[in-house]
């Protein structure tokens, strides 16, 4: 079995994109607004997953944060993405693949988010995001209203 990675990576080229986001303290995802690298990564991953955009790291791998910083709930989300993506729980036996899947979605999500931020007028991105979250939430509620209630 390959040795489990000790850190989560991004593409070296994406560091510039990350810095772009970080430059604005008013920005929801900005490092300056108090978001840790791990939190940023999970959010990008969620965005990429939502839109089904995966982008493998093509260039040089650049360590973003250490795996030891992941809490059980962070791991649960990363694992869930890997399970959904592979269609099998067996993927969990291959932790490198689990992280790789997460990295690919995060890479896709980061670009999507940046595009969305850049295409929004100042102050409207958060509204857009809120609206999008409401839409997803409504779908979840609609889907579940016939069957098992949300959270039950």
């Amino acid at each position, binding site marked *: 079995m390959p040795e489990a990675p000790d850190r989560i990576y991004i593409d070296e080229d994406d560091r510039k994109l990350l810095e772009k986001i970080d430059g604005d303290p008013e920005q929801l995802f900005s490092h300056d607004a108090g978001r840790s690298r791990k939190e940023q990564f999970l959010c990008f991953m969620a965005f990429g997953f939502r839109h089904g955009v995966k982008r493998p790291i093509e260039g040089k791998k650049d360590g973003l944060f250490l795996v030891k910083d992941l809490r059980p709930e962070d791991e649960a989300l990363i694992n869930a993405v890997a399970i959904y993506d592979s269609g099998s729980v*067996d993927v969990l036996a291959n932790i490198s693949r689990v992280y790789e899947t997460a990295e690919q979605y995060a890479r896709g999500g980061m670009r999507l988010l940046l595009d969305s931020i850049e295409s929004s007028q100042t102050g409207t991105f958060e509204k857009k995001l809120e609206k999008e979250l409401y839409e997803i939430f409504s779908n979840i509620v609609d889907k579940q209203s016939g069957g098992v209630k949300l959270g039950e």
Partner: protein
Amino acid sequence: MRIERLILSNYRQFRELDIHFATKQDHDLHLFVAPTGTAKTNLVNAINWCLYYQEPHLTADSQLLPIINLKAIEEACDDADQEVKVEIWAKAKKDETIAFVRKGIYRVRSKQPVHQKTEFEVRVTDPKGNTKLLIDEDAHSYVERFVPQRIREFFFFDGERLDSYFREATGDKVRSAIFQISQIDLLDTVSEKLDLVLRELLKEAGKESPSIDATRANLEKAENSRKDCLQKIGECEKQIDMASARIKELRERLVGMPDAQTLEKERQDLGAERKRKEEVLKAKEAQKRDLLFEYATIIPLWLAIEKSTQVIAKKRAEGEIPPTVDKSLLEGILNEKVCKICGRSLDSLAVRHVRDVLEQVTLSSEVAQQLLRMEHPLGMFEDKVKDFEKNISRISKDIGDLKADMGRIEESIKKINTALSGHNTEQIREWNEALNQFEGLRADNQTRLGELKEAQRRVDTEIQRHKAELDREFKKVEKVKKLGKEKVFCAKALDIAQKTKEAILQEMKDKIEYETKRLFLELVWKKESFKDVRIDQKYQISLIHWMGWECLGTVSAGERELLALAFTLALHKVSGFDSPIVIDTPVARLAGESRENFGRVLCQVSKDKQCILLFHDDEYSSNIRKYMDSKAASRSLFRLSQDEKEVKMEVLSNA
């Protein structure tokens, strides 16, 4: 008595001036119009100098100049005497002609006048032509019959007096005016003398009896305390009157003005509230951003969360979670055909058995452990997603409420700004501050007045007690019985003198109140607006609106001046001195309709009384001219000569 002629010779800017005051039809109205610097006011000074040897209205410039005309000085030979002379010719009711003549003799040395002497005489000529010359005391007493010096300010004055008379504290002024008009100073002198005699009597009696002396000393002490107390009460009442007048004036000024002090305080409070709300809003918005960020990490992963949750549930249902068999251990045993627990080699039966078990186990224990670890966090995320709408709505509502509050605050600030715009807020604040100060001063003095009155009551009781004791002592000691009778007489006389004084004052006050009311209501242009004029026990004058409230503080400047004029004319009437009224700049402080109305009133007054009015040329505006020109018995214009050393008079019209 009216002035028939005024002759000035070498008096200040007037080299030679001879004014005849003829009457015309119904009006005894005489107008003098003068540009700035043409010594119009010195005509009032000339009257005062002639009658009282005083010049109460001298300007700062005139004070630096000699009384004798500069041209007369220039033309005088060295060591020659020059004469300043003012003559007032008056006509009394018995057709007597009275000439008041004052002469000042100055010796001019090196163009400097040196005063030598001043002479005053009164010439009284009867209808048959017999002339009586009066000098010294006799002459002065004749002046006192014309206009007594102590009340001259009610006859010859500046229009400013009418403007300010009822703007400031009135109680003291009205009381003093009534006191002067009543001429009760003789009674005051009698009271003082009687008091002195009484004290002497008591001292004399004290020599005969130590107990009388001790009681007398105590009585004197108590009476001094009473005097002190009354003086303090007077000061206190003066302060209250002054503060009340200032409060009235400031309230009048502040009518229709925004309460800048309160509004500015309100604006400051609103500003602080807005800042506080801004901070709360910022915190709430940050909170919402955090919440959105948190949900942005969970909600888009809902499908993955949901799927994993379902898988875990299924595995649990199938008994694979928690794991009972270690799949990798079994795989290792099969590969090596050796039991990893006991170390024995596996036979074919054992290999088949392990293979059967392995076939049944689909999930490695490592994966099962992972799934087990995921179960709780995923459930937590599900709960969190369930509360998404509630959490976001709550915080959005808080933000919305805060923004609405801030909008309201902004609106209020805007309203205050609008209310304050166009006003001198600094001035309004100063007035409000002054108002608060005077209200505080009045309240303090009212409290102090209460204490002082209580102290006075105690001292009065003490005085009565000492007096009763003295009476007893006087009866006991034989030697002082005669002195006792004198004492009783003096005390009674003193009491009568004081009561008489009070009665006269009261009677004069009532008469002046009646006359002021009558004249005011007769002369006022808004006949229906007012119903009464009152002078209360504290000599405060009140003007009563027809609806019943006191309105002196809110009437126009013209109406206030008219009240002062009515009061002045009432004083004339009640004093019994039917002398002319001479007003310098009578309408300068009035404008527009008020000026016009007041001008009309002065015309009306001139039907019953000789009115000599000295106008500044700006003041003698078209709205005054249109009433006065046709009614005036004489109109004259003062002009300054080219060398500015002499004022000449041009008679524009004379009856």
